[in-house]
């Protein structure tokens, strides 16, 4: 099973049935799997804070939501995470491509990467970092944890986890 398929199967096994996405090159495979899965309503968002609003609504409507986005989105969504997701105590697994880490070819991505964990820490958001493929074994447990504690939880997935960008 591909790693993208495994992550999506874990979502489904945890009753996650509403996923909003803002694309990233690293996430293309997992977004394809989300789109193709019959048990998931996939709603692409134009911006990540909009996506978090959709997820908040879906949660209150009775579905377990998730968002898939790039780490640059942390810069976009701080107000939403704090005043909506956290203030109203809503669960939100955030599967995040961690751009700007080892094997990154685009220098500008590093500028946000160096702030990503510090910002998540400042926001008291539980954060997990997938660096090797085997790290994804914890994904199922992380999803259970997220819906147990009703918090936004970040899963950072770097280029090494996704198999890099090919030869550099």
């Amino acid at each position, binding site marked *: 099973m591909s790693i993208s398929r495994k992550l999506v199967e874990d979502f489904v096994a945890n009753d996650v049935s*509403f996923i909003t996405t803002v694309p990233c090159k690293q996430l293309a495979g997992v977004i394809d799997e989300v789109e193709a899965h019959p048990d998931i309503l996939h709603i692409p968002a134009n*911006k990540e804070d*909009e*996506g978090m*609003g*959709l997820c*908040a609504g879906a949660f209150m*409507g009775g579905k377990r939501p998730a968002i898939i986005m790039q780490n640059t989105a942390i810069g976009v969504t701080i107000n939403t995470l704090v005043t909506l997701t956290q203030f109203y105590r*809503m669960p939100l697994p955030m599967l995040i491509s961690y751009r700007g880490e080892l094997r990154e070819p685009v220098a500008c991505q590093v500028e946000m990467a160096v702030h990503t964990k510090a910002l998540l820490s400042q926001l008291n958001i539980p954060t997990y970092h997938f660096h090797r493929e085997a790290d994804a074994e914890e994904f199922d447990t992380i999803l259970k944890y997220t819906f147990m504690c009703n918090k936004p939880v970040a899963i950072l997935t770097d280029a090494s986890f996704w198999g890099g960008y090919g030869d550099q």
Partner: protein
Amino acid sequence: MIRSDILKDIAPILRDHLVICNIGLPSQELHMIDDQPSNFYMLGTMGLASSIGLGVALAQDKTVISIDGDGSVLTNLGTLPTIANNVADNFILLIIDNGSYGSTGDQPTYAGRKTKLENVARACGCDTVVTCAAEETGEALQAAIDARKMTVIVAKCESGNIKLPVITKDPVVIRERFMKAVMA
């Protein structure tokens, strides 16, 4: 008519439906006029009333009405293509368009100048967009509910606010009672 007059007029219609109410004065006004468990008051996060409402509508079958403002829709303009492309016939976006940022001191918005949100909604692909005068809002809203067709209503009114207190209810209480109303 100003926004609070519209809310007073349509409160008897809103009472029977799930309502996501915009941050600031709109929520405070609706809370004072007719507080209901089926009202979700936004205490923060400007711009997301329509996104939250669409999410609720896509997740279940009851009618959902998002009460938004022209300033808030401009803040999250990307919501209109998302609404247009993910049709939920149990969703109504009611934009109370007073051409100003009411909660912050009635500074003019671009919707009060050259930009027409009804035209923006249509250009984004929203199929049913209704424009009405303030006093026709109730009629337009009831028609949209009865049609069971996703509708964007732009209700034009004058800018102006009434004095009223902030909402002190705990956000988790607001969220929990709203979720019980969803399941009722």
